[in-house]
């Protein structure tokens, strides 16, 4: 009984201290999501004027904002055209009138929908030219990025992102919420700083130092040391690990960022992945998520994209530091 009272005496003030951080984090997330919904539905209206809107219903949407006379963008659209992703996803390119005509002429419009680049008063943050946005069928952005990435790499990421919607979407949310509780006590010095950082988390069911996991952990440690100002890094271990295993893991690899064991709900979704897709998706998944919880990029064993993943992370570091 005494133990419970003492625990409550400690836990309540701590919860009060941490509450503003959690609530502001969640508020920002909700605000960001509202913007993305707005864009999605505006786009949907626009779509409805050209094609039968029922074709869009219940399908995720890949939307790219093409810049005029940009070689990266042109390559990106051509690659999209040549290697179209999956038939379950609607593909659309928003562009200028002039480019629309050009691409229609080249026959690209047979595989993707081309739209006029006029969306009124939408927040510019969500229509950055040269960027793509991938929405789930409810209008939530689940992955985005710029045209510098190769389509084959994007395709792999999209396939994972697509699989995460649902139950994957809630999966990432759960990890972020769980993750936040691990970060806050250790990083009292700058809540705002934490809020704006990109989150990287790796999920491990087994850890073998000489295998891929060893490479990932080494890379994350290096990234934490060199780009700790940009990323919040963490590792999620499955429930195969006990709390002693977690301690041994931290000691063995000399890890200074948070490592936590998946709670029941994360574990449930994680197992659902395995049952729905394959054993591959229970070990060695790495997610890179922006401060609003949207997936920027990911790595998983089947994608064979470790080098590309690392390049994209490097590009993110450059971009974030450039933008201050």
């Amino acid at each position, binding site marked *: 009984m005494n133990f419970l009272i003492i625990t409550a005496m400690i836990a309540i003030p701590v919860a009060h201290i941490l509450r503003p951080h959690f609530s502001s984090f969640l508020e920002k997330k909700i605000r960001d999501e509202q913007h993305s919904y707005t864009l999605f539905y505006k786009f949907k209206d626009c779509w409805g004027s050209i094609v039968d809107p029922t074709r869009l219903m219940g399908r995720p949407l890949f939307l790219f904002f093409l810049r005029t006379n940009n070689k990266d963008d042109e390559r990106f659209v051509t690659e999209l055209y040549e290697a179209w992703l999956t038939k379950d996803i609607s593909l659309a390119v928003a562009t200028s009138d002039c480019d629309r005509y050009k691409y229609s002429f080249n026959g690209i419009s047979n595989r993707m929908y081309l739209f006029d680049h006029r969306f009124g008063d939408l927040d510019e943050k969500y229509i950055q030219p040269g960027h793509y946005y991938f929405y789930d069928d409810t209008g939530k952005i689940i992955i985005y990025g710029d045209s510098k990435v190769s389509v084959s790499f994007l395709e792999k990421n999209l396939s994972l992102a697509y699989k995460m919607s649902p139950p994957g979407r809630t999966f990432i949310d759960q990890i972020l919420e769980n993750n936040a509780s691990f970060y806050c006590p250790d990083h009292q010095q700058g809540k705002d700083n934490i809020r704006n950082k990109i989150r990287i988390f790796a999920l491990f069911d087994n*850890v*073998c*130092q*000489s295998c891929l996991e*060893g490479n990932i952990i080494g890379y994350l440690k290096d990234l934490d040391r060199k780009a700790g100002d940009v990323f919040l890094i963490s590792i999620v271990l499955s429930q*195969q690990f*006990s709390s002693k*295993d977690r301690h*041994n893991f931290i000691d063995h690899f000399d890890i200074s960022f948070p490592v936590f064991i998946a709670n029941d709900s994360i574990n449930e979704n994680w197992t659902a992945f395995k049952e729905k897709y394959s054993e591959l998706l229970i070990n060695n998944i790495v997610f890179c998520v922006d401060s609003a919880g949207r997936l920027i990029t990911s790595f998983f064993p089947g994608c064979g994209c470790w080098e590309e993943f690392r390049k994209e992370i490097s590009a993110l570091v450059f971009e974030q530091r450039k933008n201050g």
Partner: protein
Amino acid sequence: MARQSPFIKTISSIPFLLFLFWQVKPVDEDSLKAWQTLLKKYPPPKDAKELVFVDSIPKDSDQEESFFWGAKTIAADENDNIYVADSKAHQILKFDRVGKFIKRFGRQGRAPGEIENIWKIVFYQGTLIANDVGNMRFQYYDREGNFIKGFKVFKTYLDFDVDSEGLIYAVPIRSTKSERLVEVIDSEGKLIHELGNPLDFQRDWQQLNHAIISLDEEDNILLAFVHFPIVRKYDRQGRLIYERKYPIGFQKKQMEMNYQFEKISRNSRALVGYIVMNDAIKAAKGVWIMNSYPRLEIKKFDYEGNLQDIFWKNRTQDYHASAFLLKIGDKSGEFFVLQTSPENKIEKYKFNH
């Protein structure tokens, strides 16, 4: 164009058939001849003792439940019950001292107590410790197969033994050249320390350093290299007590060939290293080393590295054994050899010493 007669057609196809025959036939014959040549070239020494085959476990007449599928390693408890780890069945089989099947336990899976590819088992004070490689963990069972506890590890271990205090001495698959040969882990999975410098190879430093481990009565560590007839002895602090080489007969040739492989291999890894030692154990104040090619041989050395006895038995060309146990009396003893090819069973041999 003139039509060819059936006779000419037949004649013209002979070179092709001969070519096919030449391509297919010599493969088996060559390896068989090579094996027979080795048997003649490297006969057992005159004072070596031929093993007497007694029995096998399980017997052909036994119930199917007792048969092995992919057994790789064996262990015995204080009552001489024999435990067999079957890495394909993901189970452990228990037999009594006379080889009567008692039970099998464990099943494939990731939950506590379940197994995913088991590589080694060791008995320690009535507890069976298993290296569950697929799940990257060590698991503890009682004699009846009830799960006691387990912990995760972060390396794949080729072999392990347990000292008198329950510390695990394990040989990892090394991922960097600077890693040591043995890791000492406590019974909660915490890494205590590392010991043993690897053999110095430039290219195939990983595979050519694979070793078998065993602890003697004083908890000194005996490390036998799989690809070289070299045994090292370390104390518990990791100080090297000695390194002995046992280049005898065909094992000497194999050692030379493995050194040569390392020298001439232009790739980052040699294709294969000849296995010089299949298993090594401590028992009856000595080091016992087993190899199964070209014949089954078990050699006994004293702790100073002096050869004391050689036991042998001619088997077939495709014979392979992966582990053995020793039961020794004053004048005679028994080997329990786990054959993995062509059959998978334990062979019981008698010997006098």
